[in-house]
């Protein structure tokens, strides 16, 4: 499909979306905001999967679909592949991106806050930006007929790992 857009444009768009949901529409209701953002991501992924799976044989099992997400889908969206894929073979997959694009330009100073809860605030603000990609993954997979739940983990930045739990 090779359709290209300005990356910066997308970045700013995403940032702005997250900002307006967290601080404008659903200020101090972060869970609601999260759900909204995730829903948007879901729609996006839903659309993307339709495009990116053209011209390719159907997936015979879940693993293939996940691999598709890691390779083609990811490189379509982020110009790189997932660096590491782990699975427990019981429906849980861990996709690790060592340098997740949307976090690469991001830096939160916990120094602004004091001590522990500062850290928490920082990570929470970070994680807000991860609901969108999570939603994208979930949307793509569910459009491929794989209902699942996706969560993200940013314990060691800038690496970011997405955990996919497939609903049996």
């Amino acid at each position, binding site marked *: 499909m090779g359709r290209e857009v300005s990356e910066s444009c997308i970045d700013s768009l995403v940032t702005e979306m997250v900002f307006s949901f967290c601080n404008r529409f659903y200020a101090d209701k972060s869970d609601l905001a999260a759900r909204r953002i995730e829903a948007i991501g879901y729609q996006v992924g839903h659309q993307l999967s*339709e495009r990116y799976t*053209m011209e390719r*044989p*159907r997936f*015979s099992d879940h693993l293939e679909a996940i691999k598709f997400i890691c390779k083609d889908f990811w490189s379509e969206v982020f110009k790189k592949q997932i660096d590491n894929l782990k699975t427990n073979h019981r429906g849980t997959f861990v996709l690790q991106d060592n340098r997740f694009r949307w976090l690469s330009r991001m830096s939160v100073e916990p120094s602004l806050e004091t001590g522990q809860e500062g850290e928490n605030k920082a990570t929470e603000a970070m994680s807000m930006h991860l609901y969108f990609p999570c939603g994208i993954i979930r949307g793509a997979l569910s459009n491929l*007929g794989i209902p699942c739940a996706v969560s993200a983990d940013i314990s060691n930045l800038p690496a970011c790992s997405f955990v996919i739990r497939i609903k049996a």
Partner: protein
Amino acid sequence: MIVCVAVVGHQNNPLYIQSFTEADDALKLHHIVHCSLDVIDERVNNPKKSGPLLNETFLGLLYPTENYKVYGYLTNTKVKFILVTTDLDVKDADVRNFFRRFHAAYGDAVSNPFHVPGKKITSRTFAESVSTIVKAFGLSSAG
């Protein structure tokens, strides 16, 4: 010539059925498309017949009715495209080509913001692009 093309959603609900004949045979075509879903299910679920081209989106000739040939195509998103034609000798390549273009058109149609996923495709743009593709099919098979 192509008699009818159809898009059927992943819950086997008709999303788009367009016949290209003057005759008032909408009902018959609906029946044909509807029944072809059984064949598609069969093809997909017990793939022993379809052998190597197991996961290909193109399902090939579903079944020949008395005077039609029905071809099927199943996307990764479990959406079925069905092509009903009266041509007796159709080149496989042509059908594949047709479905590829059709799939592209469908992709555009579903990324139309006014399209509700899972609902009937009403976009005029889609209809137009489909009709052009259908015309092209006739030509390509000719030449």
